[in-house]
């Protein structure tokens, strides 16, 4: 089985500061990986590097996504190849309605795959269907993208976009932060409904809470720019119970 994503010894940083100090990770089709870790361990940097944020400098290692060198691809090409990042802080874009934005986005992806643009009626019907996954009201379609949305609405909108774009690999960056329990349940429900045997999900989170709803196949602990421990879903529960200090201690002893 060819992995969807293969990260090998990745080192990266920002402004001369090294944040990722050798991350290796293999994600296979059908898998859900959770990456946990205390603040400042490099979780968001990993998400940013995968999405292609230009302010991060890659200093070493490789990232292969579906057989291609991911690091060579522009952010838009990563999306076209099937990568999706659910943003920790989705951006408000005044004047661009959610519907128009998604139409442009979906059709760009279709164009890349050599498909015709979707007919407006088909597209509208698809949007209506997928919105139900995250219990979003249709009125959001005509509103400016994320403008004036509550924290929960923004996160639901991210999952709605994911449902529309049907990525091969979805990276959810702290999607659970700032969500109340109902919104968390809805967001998780959406992600679960989108799980398929041929696609994969990476959930980046600080808390175990989201993993009560989205059951991961593998849990990794990121500390000081390295994955210091990997295990099954029970690792998340242990972290919840014991905190991160014992991991830090163990990591220090190894070093």
């Amino acid at each position, binding site marked *: 089985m060819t992995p969807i994503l293969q990260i090998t010894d990745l080192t990266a940083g920002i402004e001369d500061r090294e944040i990722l100090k050798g991350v290796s990770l293999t994600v296979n089709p059908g898998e859900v990986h959770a990456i946990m870790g205390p603040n400042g361990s490099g979780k968001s940097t990993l998400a940013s590097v995968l999405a292609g944020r230009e302010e991060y400098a890659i200093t070493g290692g490789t990232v292969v996504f579906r057989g291609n060198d991911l690091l060579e691809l522009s952010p838009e090409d990563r999306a076209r190849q099937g990568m999706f990042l659910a943003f920790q802080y989705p951006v408000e874009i005044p004047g661009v309605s959610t519907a128009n*934005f998604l139409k442009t986005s979906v059709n760009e992806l279709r164009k890349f795959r050599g498909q015709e643009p979707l007919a407006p009626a088909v597209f509208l019907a698809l949007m209506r269907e997928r919105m139900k996954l995250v219990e979003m009201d249709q009125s959001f379609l005509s509103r400016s993208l994320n403008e004036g949305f509550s924290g929960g609405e923004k996160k639901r909108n991210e999952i709605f976009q994911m449902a529309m774009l049907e990525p091969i690999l979805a990276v959810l960056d702290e999607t659970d932060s700032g969500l109340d329990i109902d919104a968390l349940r809805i967001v998780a429900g959406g992600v679960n409904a989108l799980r398929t045997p041929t696609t994969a999900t990476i959930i980046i989170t600080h808390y175990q809470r989201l993993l009560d709803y989205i059951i991961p196949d593998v849990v990794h602990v990121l500390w000081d720019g390295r994955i210091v421990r990997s295990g099954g879903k029970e690792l998340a529960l242990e972290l919840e119970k014991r905190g991160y200090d014992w991991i830090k201690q163990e990591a220090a002893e190894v070093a």
Partner: protein
Amino acid sequence: MPQAAFNDVIKRSFDDLSKRLNGSASGPLHKMREAALKSFIEQGVPTTRHEEWKYANVLPFIGLEYSRVSEIAKSVTEKDIDEALGELVSVLESGWRVTIVNGQFRGDLSYLPAAVTGVSVDVLSDKLIANDEVVRAAYGSVAKSDAHPFVAMNTALACDGVVIRVAKGSEMKRPLHIAIISDARQVNVLTTPRILIVAEEGSEIDIVETHSTIGDQQALDVSVSEIAVGSNAHVRFHKVADDQDDSRHIGYTAATVARDGRFTSHCINIAGNFIRNDLVINLADVGSQAYLYGASVLGGVQFADSHTVVDHAVNNCHSEELYKGIYDGSSIGVFNGKIFVRPQAQKTTAYQSNHSVLLSDKAQVNAKPQLEIWADDVKCSHGATLGQLNDEAIFYLRSRGIDADKARALMTYAFVAEVLEHIDHEGLREFCEKRVASKLGTEPLSL
């Protein structure tokens, strides 16, 4: 001295006109021309030392040799006009067109509402001034010569202008297009189109004013439109600058709004080299309202200067203003928005906002909101912002498969579309959206 040479051109044109008038040189219109000429010479051609003309440098083109209007052959055909107007022809084909070529009304090139009641179009003449009290009261008093040097110049030279009257209670369903053409195919021309619109009590009309240059010689188009909005009447005025790349336009639009009347203005600047628009609105009676929308989408070496004035002369009037601009290349934009609230204008509500985005290091915008409020029980606000596109937003769009250029185009288009969406006339709105989108390298958003 280009100013002196220009003054000579104006004086010679005036003398020329006086000779051509054949007896009507003693009529009221020509009396006004004489006074206006005097006022123009007194005010002089403004230089950039003049506060109102700080960024609008007219010296480079007032020194040109301009031929006098009377020397120009009347050879413009309907085909020429259709070519100059391009797609606008089909956009506005259901409406009426008043055509003005080199400042003169051309009935033969106009489609007038002959069988339609409610609108009339006449040539501005001494006879009309003598017989029509409303025209007499409005002409030259809505736009005053002493307030602006180019209004004075226009008034001194305007001949065969147009008077459009919308009769009491008439709701005109079709737009009236004023197509102003400068024919510069043979020689440089200086044109002075003059328009007076009188919308009587309770009437309603859409006016679309366009300025087009034909030919490769230089044209300087100095136009004045006066609009008297009657009580409870509603005039929606649209001015679309989408002319040849080297065209130059100095325009002055003045409206006075009577009790409970409404004046809505849309000024869209897309193509043209030098565009100066003054828009002066006098909210003259209780309950009158003004809505001012403006959008400039500039690139290259384009210059567009929007000077607006809203004068709240009495109590309980309302004004809202939204002007936006996108500036690329080494283009220059100017926004100067004045709001006056006179001491007696209590319970005024006046809101102004002006937002600009610079797309290049060489582009510049000069924004100056100017609120002068003498009444104390009012609600007034203004906001001006200047920025670049939000990088985080561009990244967000890119991460959804939209390339960087398209992401920028989408965002700039959306920025301007917020102004265009206020245009009620569907065809015209779509036309403007299409032109703006094409200039920004995208297509209109359609859902």
